[in-house]
């Protein structure tokens, strides 16, 4: 072969025959995309099969009168389960209780949590230790929390309940036995359990505030209160709302603690949506009705979350320029 032939041959091989070109234009970046895709797929599929599918089934059942003990009598009832839910006084009371519990509880936790966070703002060993111990209530099994307070408030042997009864404070039979005070007790217990966690999230928010801006406020002559209301709080709003979202979602779905503390009583005073749903579904096996209740709860939570997310976005935009 002549030199020109060899040259032409080499050039031709390089431009047309390489493996990357043969695969089209995917190459490394295409491989990367597939790689990431397949890393995420197992988790997504798993969650869909184990989580979304049963949920969807549940939603489906909510349109049926479906009782596990009488499966043959299942029939389609459309929105009846939902209508009955709102018509039933116990369920209505439960809805009201759940909202009251959530809103009051979360509000108190927010204010107290913010106070604690402000006190813990400086980063030193004392504060870190205090925070670690303060978080203990958040790590205790919610069931045990319920038992603790049931034990403490019992008028016979409970450390708090006995003395309250002795001194004639509070209702006869203890705070948990009276319809008027029982829900408040549950709210207090929830605050006991979760205020420190709220403080933790808010503390993280405080620590992420730009320190030079805070110094500028001091240099501009702002007093402590002025700094708090005009600078700290506005800049903290996104964190505050995020903390609110998390806590609201959890508070609305509360179950373990009231289950063991009051079981919904006395009467219906501490009935919550979850308590009723579980009772209907797992005690009376009214799957259709229970599913409807669950879906209503999801709807309420979704609405609250949507409102709060909207608020987060608005606060964020306000800080980062509209």
């Amino acid at each position: 072969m002549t030199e020109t032939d060899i040259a032409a041959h080499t050039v031709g091989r390089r431009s047309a025959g390489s493996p990357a070109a043969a695969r089209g234009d995917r190459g490394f970046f295409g491989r990367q995309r597939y790689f990431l895709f397949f890393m995420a797929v197992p988790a997504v599929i798993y969650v869909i099969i184990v989580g979304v599918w049963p949920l969807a089934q549940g939603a489906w059942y909510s349109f049926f009168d479906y009782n596990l003990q009488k499966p043959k009598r299942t029939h389609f009832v459309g929105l009846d389960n939902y209508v009955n839910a709102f018509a039933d006084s116990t369920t209505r009371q439960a809805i009201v209780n759940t909202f009251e519990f959530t809103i009051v509880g979360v509000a108190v936790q927010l204010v107290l949590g913010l106070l604690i966070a402000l006190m813990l703002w400086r980063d030193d060993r004392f504060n870190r230790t205090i925070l670690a111990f303060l978080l203990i209530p958040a790590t205790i099994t919610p069931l045990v929390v319920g038992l603790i307070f049931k034990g403490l408030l019992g008028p016979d042997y409970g450390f708090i309940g006995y003395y309250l009864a002795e001194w004639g404070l509070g209702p006869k039979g203890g705070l948990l036995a009276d319809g008027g005070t029982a829900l408040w007790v549950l709210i207090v217990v929830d605050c006991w359990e979760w205020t420190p966690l709220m403080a933790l999230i808010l503390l993280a928010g405080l620590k992420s505030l730009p320190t030079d801006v805070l110094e500028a406020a001091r240099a501009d002559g702002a007093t402590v209160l002025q700094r708090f209301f005009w600078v700290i709080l506005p800049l903290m709003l996104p964190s505050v709302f995020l903390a609110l979202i998390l806590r609201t979602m959890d508070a609305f779905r509360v179950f373990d603690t009231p289950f063991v503390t009051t079981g919904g009583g006395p009467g219906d005073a501490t009935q919550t949506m979850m308590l009723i749903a579980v009772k209907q579904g797992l005690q009376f096996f009214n799957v259709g009705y229970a599913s409807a209740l669950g879906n209503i709860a999801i709807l309420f939570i979704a609405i609250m979350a949507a409102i709060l997310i909207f608020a987060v976005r608005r606060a964020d935009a306000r800080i980062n320029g509209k």
Partner: protein
Amino acid sequence: MAQITFDSVSKTYEGGYAAVRDLDLDIKDGEFMVLVGPSGCGKSTALRMIAGLEEITGGELRINGRIANGLAPRDRDIAMVFQSYALYPHLTVAQNIGFGLRTRQVDRATIDRKVRETAELLELTEYLGRKPAKLSGGQRQRVAMGRALVRSPNAFLMDEPLSNLDARLRGQMRSEIAKLQRMTAVTTIYVTHDQVEAMTMGDRVAVMNRGTIQQLDTPRALYDRPKNLFVASFIGSPPMNFLRGTVEAAEGPAVRLGDTLLRLDPRHAGLGQGRPVILGIRPEAMRVGGDSGGLSATAAFVEDLGATLLLHLENAELDIVPPNVAEDDVDLNVVRPRLRAVTEGTARIARDEVVRLAVAPEAIHVFDPASGEAL
């Protein structure tokens, strides 16, 4: 309007690190005082001590004669411009500027008027409704200035306000700031690491290093009569050349450097024969050419800066001391230190060309090698 005095002021952190040591400084009312030095020298700490953002651990700070150590920033009535500008991200430009007035409960109408006036002064009027996120770096810097200017405080405290700007803007803002200060006649303390800013803006400049003031003087005096090696090497760009030599006082004060004998100014007549010294010669003081009685060196590298040529010269027989202005500044010349000389851009000097340098005796600074002090 304020007169500020540091009386033996110290700042020692827990753990023993002393950022500021026994600082004595008297800032006159209406003066533009610049604190300059390498990073870590304590200049920002000193500024923040005036503001009340750093607690003083020793000595007394007096503002207008009153001891101010324990006063909150609010009670010192100072206005500060931060290096990062520290604008309130959730407030508009107008609200940012007016913040310091709002905290002092000035009435709404007055705030609006003053904000408008200040905005006009700084050409920010069309941005009054915007938030900092939507502003350019230069605009943000002006808002930070506006926040300080809108009030009539005891003092303006500026912590490297121009270092985040690009070079061209920096030059513009330098003259703006100087102009504004003259206009308002408010005592201003300005911190920078850039000696060009220090020299062009200050009435007096305090050169600081390791928590103490090395020299406090007018810019001219700092350039002409540096008190020690540190100040001499810090002020002036390109930095001063340092050469080791021994005194030969036979025919009037002179110093032997290898083969060369350099004549000194008569004011150095008292130096003892054989005494080791370090000579300091500014690059701009070296004249290229001249016949005999000067230094000669080979041009290792020629930087053409347009109007001038910056020559990097070597001479193995001269004991050239590398300048070590700041310890974290790695000087690439340490292995083979070079001399720097500045000459007109029209001169034709090629690499490896041997060049003769003449220096006027008045332009030679003499330092004691042990203490670093000027002789």
